[in-house]
């Protein structure tokens, strides 16, 4: 990979991190939603760089396109502009930050450790990149066809559930 690859990576990753920070720190929920969309787009770019074209496409279409729109719609529907307190808890905040920071440290350590023991195989990357979508399709419909079907059923259930929930008058009764 050349220098361009590296630069692309750093730019995209910076965007992703900044946008993530925006998600969690901005008090206005609309801004949070837009930042999340930005994170997703940046990640889609990273997927492209990694040669996972199909996944990147799906990320853009489904995630950034459908899920974020859903979020934004809900936020707008209820006009959640006014937020007197964005962050919950007082002294708890300290503990939260400490816990999360420690977790990050732990995760990073774990990630590095695993990557050291794992055996990376150098394969034919160019060939894999070229036919990646076709190869994905092949594996998906043969090796994982059962999971695929189950997922379809799951989506059906989710649709039914969402419609039922939306029909209710809200609250604790059915």
């Amino acid at each position, binding site marked *: 990979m050349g220098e361009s690859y590296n630069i692309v990576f750093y730019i995209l990753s910076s965007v992703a991190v900044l946008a993530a920070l925006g998600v969690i720190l901005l008090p206005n929920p609309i801004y949070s939603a837009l930042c*999340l969309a930005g994170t997703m787009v940046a990640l889609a770019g990273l997927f492209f760089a990694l040669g*996972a074209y199909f*996944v990147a496409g799906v990320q853009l279409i489904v995630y950034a396109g459908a899920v974020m729109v859903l*979020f934004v719609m809900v936020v707008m529907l209820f006009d959640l502009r006014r937020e007197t307190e964005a962050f919950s808890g007082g002294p708890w905040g300290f503990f939260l930050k400490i816990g999360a920071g420690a977790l990050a440290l732990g995760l990073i350590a774990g990630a590095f450790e695993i990557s050291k023991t794992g055996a990376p195989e150098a394969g034919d990357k160019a060939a894999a990149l070229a036919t990646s979508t076709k190869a994905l399709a092949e594996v998906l419909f043969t090796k994982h066809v059962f999971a695929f079907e189950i997922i379809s059923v799951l989506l059906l259930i989710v649709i039914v*559930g969402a419609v039922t929930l939306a029909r209710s008058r809200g609250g604790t009764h059915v």
Partner: protein
Amino acid sequence: MFDVGLNHYLLLSAILFSLGMIGVLIRRNAIVILMSIELMLNAVNLSFVAFSHQMNNMDGKIIVFFVMTIAAAEAGVGLALAVAILKRFKEINIRQFEQLKG
């Protein structure tokens, strides 16, 4: 260090994940919490794709495919629930919903 390899992707994934986790813990708005969960899922997707690229194994991308599907489904249902609660209680602050205390 400037030569980007697997470790960099993993580091990015770890950072995004922990940011998402912090968001879950410190935000008051239930919708924003759901968004932070989506962020975490995205971070995990990134690490899967990075590994799949490194190992030349298609399974990583398959998993990502499924994870996205499920995340989308979960977001839909979660938002439907949030809408239902919002309609009833007119409140989105999760600190108001502490009835399950001991």
